[in-house]
């Protein structure tokens, strides 16, 4: 016969930790400052700071470019210009991250943009909340926007041309290193692949935030 000894155990916490170093976003108004999108539901969506600013931007410089609608019509004596003034809310801003030889953006950034597309703020007829767009490299102003869509490549917005390149260089295993094989595998963002096609984000301006 053997004698056994049992212990009353003092609980030991099971913990996991991750340490990261904050990256800069630049000072607003500075040309190097990174733009961002802020979802009104901050409990579920962290602010999206662009990994890099777009290469091209339509209908916006330091402010919304609301181009009037004009038409030239003939009259009895001459041609006349008809001009229809537009409002801010009629302006759609488009941002383009050019792909091709330059590669457009890391895949994780695209997912962050797409997250804004897929999760519009809840409809509220009394106090509607909007995603805030901050073109911080252009202006101190911020804008309420409706994200219309996010497109990869030049085709249908609903079809993402997602050939990915890897930061280490060149096409590689199509399986992302961030994919998890088991539920507890970590999803490290640093080796995230880079999209080689244009990424086009379109947003409808609602109003400038005063």
């Amino acid at each position, binding site marked *: 016969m053997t004698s056994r000894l049992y*212990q009353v155990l003092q609980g030991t916490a099971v913990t996991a930790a991750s340490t990261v170093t904050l*990256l800069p976003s630049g000072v607003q108004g500075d040309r190097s400052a990174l733009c961002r999108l802020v979802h009104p539901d901050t409990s579920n969506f962290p602010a999206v*700071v662009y990994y890099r600013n777009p290469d091209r931007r339509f209908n916006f410089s330091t402010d919304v470019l609301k181009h009037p609608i004009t038409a030239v019509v003939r009259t009895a004596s001459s041609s006349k210009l008809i001009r229809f003034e537009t409002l801010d809310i009629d302006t759609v801003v488009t941002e383009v991250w050019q792909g091709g030889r330059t590669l457009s953006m890391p895949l994780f950034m695209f997912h962050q943009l797409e997250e804004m597309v897929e999760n519009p703020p809840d409809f509220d007829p009394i106090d509607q909340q909007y995603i805030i767009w901050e073109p911080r490299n252009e202006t101190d102003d911020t804008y309420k926007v409706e994200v219309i869509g996010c497109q990869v490549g030049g085709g249908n917005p609903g079809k993402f041309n997602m050939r990915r390149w890897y930061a280490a260089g060149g096409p590689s295993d199509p399986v992302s290193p961030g994919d998890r094989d088991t539920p507890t595998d970590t999803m490290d963002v640093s080796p995230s692949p880079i999209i080689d096609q244009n990424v086009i984000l379109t947003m409808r301006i609602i109003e400038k935030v005063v």
Partner: protein
Amino acid sequence: MALTGDELRFHYTVASGYEDPQADPDQSLGGYRSEDFIQEREGDVTTAGTTFVFTDSKQINLKPVSPDSRTPLVNSDDYASASTFVHWYRPGYGDADTEMGIDHATAGTPRDISLQRSLDSSDLSSEQPGQFDQQRESVTFTGAAGNQQIRQSPAVSWGIANAWSIFAWVRPTSTAAGTFRIFRMGPSATQEWSYEITFWRDGTTLHVRIAGSTSTTQIYQTYNSFFALDTWVYIVVTWNGTTLQVYKDGSPVSWDTQPDNDSVTQIDSTRYFSISGLRMNYTDPLEEWEGQIHSVGMWSSTLAAAEVADLVDFGDGEGDPALDHTGKWLVFITGANAVDARKIIYHDNTTGEMGFKVPWGTAPVIGEIFRISGARHLFDDVTAQQCAEGHVDYRGISFYNTTGGSLTDVRFYIIPLDPGTTGLDIACGNAQIGASDMDTISPDTQEPNLVTDSAFSSTRPQSFRRPDDYASGKDAPASGTSFSLANFFHSNIWIRRTTPALSKRKDSAAWLLVMEETGGTKTAVPIVYDVLGYDVAFSLDLDRIPRTFGGSRVTARVADDTLGQAAQDESVTIEIDSGPGTLVSETQPLDTDVNGEAFAIYHSPEDDAEAGNSVTITSTFWGDPT
């Protein structure tokens, strides 16, 4: 170590509790302390008539507090584990604190041995020499001219033959030269030099003498440097009819001088007996001990060296594991219901029940007097959510008397073995109710007789004591208060287990349920609960490296570490351990989803000057997969 259902867990390593005898202020538990609760051997116990048959034995020992915490512990119940153990004298351990009561005896009624000076209760609180020291559980003797002695008169037969062993647990408060008797057994109440067993201190030397038919026919040995001032020493003297052997603190020692080494016989008949002093004399015992004596005992056999070593526990909680005590664990019932009875702590591996079975009464009937249904792990069904959010529930313990007669003067104590670590407390119900009523009370939906502090003492049996009562020493059980339980009736108490919010996984805790009978015999069983059981795989990651003005989604994932399956509805917390920024839902328990995930949103500071600073986010798992 994962906790599984079939294990009965015993407290051992938790050192808090009652290590300091001061923590047991009224010594109502005999100074038992938590780490004394050592051994467990489990198996099935069957009965054949009135004889218990041990197919395997269960052994739970309570050890007395050492007279001095710096000195080795002596496993008192191991005395009884040697089947030839016949007598144990321990101050304050008997029916009255003023007597050297007999706790362990193989037969008969307690012997009429009392202090020469009769003490009353008022003496017990003082520190006068020659009085019972409750804290040390020893008697202090003042030495020469103190006239202090514990004696047996008239002479009786001690039941020892020419093979015996005697122990004494003493502490000299002087190392002066002279004769300071520890123990003497002889044929006359007055001084005799024949047929004598005696040992004493002179300076730091131990003298041991066994005399035969004449005062000069003797075995006489001395052991130099045996004593040290103010230091407890455990002396064991063994005799096999021809050889005298002395042990110090469990180890054999060799004699230094041997003035006489004759052949000695006939020392086994009726004898007088004294602790301290040479003569059985009320007014002039002569050569009294100077210092403390904790206990003295004897066996009717010659203990082997291994057995002696096993008696001495140097604080590690274990004697010699090579010794097999199977079937030898005895706790004897003394007092009005005195019978030679073995009390068995049983544990049914099938039903999970555990409790006491005891022959009781003059015609011993084997019956239960205590049972915990579904014991072993009373509260092991705490869910992860309860663990995270905090939970209180109750379990009943029934005292079930099937002995055939009423049990009276039985006291029960509940001692938290790790107080302060897990927020344990108990509530007691006092109804003596029938068996059929027991099952109708749901511990999960009812708080039976849960009372406030002020009402507690008036509605519970006096002998039940809450831990906080115990710790503060208040509300001690009234003297003479009885807990009477009629045959075939239950009484029950309820143990309330409080799991504080955010209890960590694998927390467990235990109580010790002690039953004390008339005469001071104590038996104990553990009551243990564990909060959680399984190991998990657990990870944490961020979906992006946060930038200033930005943030990250921080996801914790829980999976079964064996199957790798996502664990849903588990509780985790995520918090910033260091660094700038804020975290939504910090410290609040989060439930994992179907993917085993729970997430929180980290918002980095809106200050680019914070760039380059590190942020450490920590996640803690609180609940296990169910």
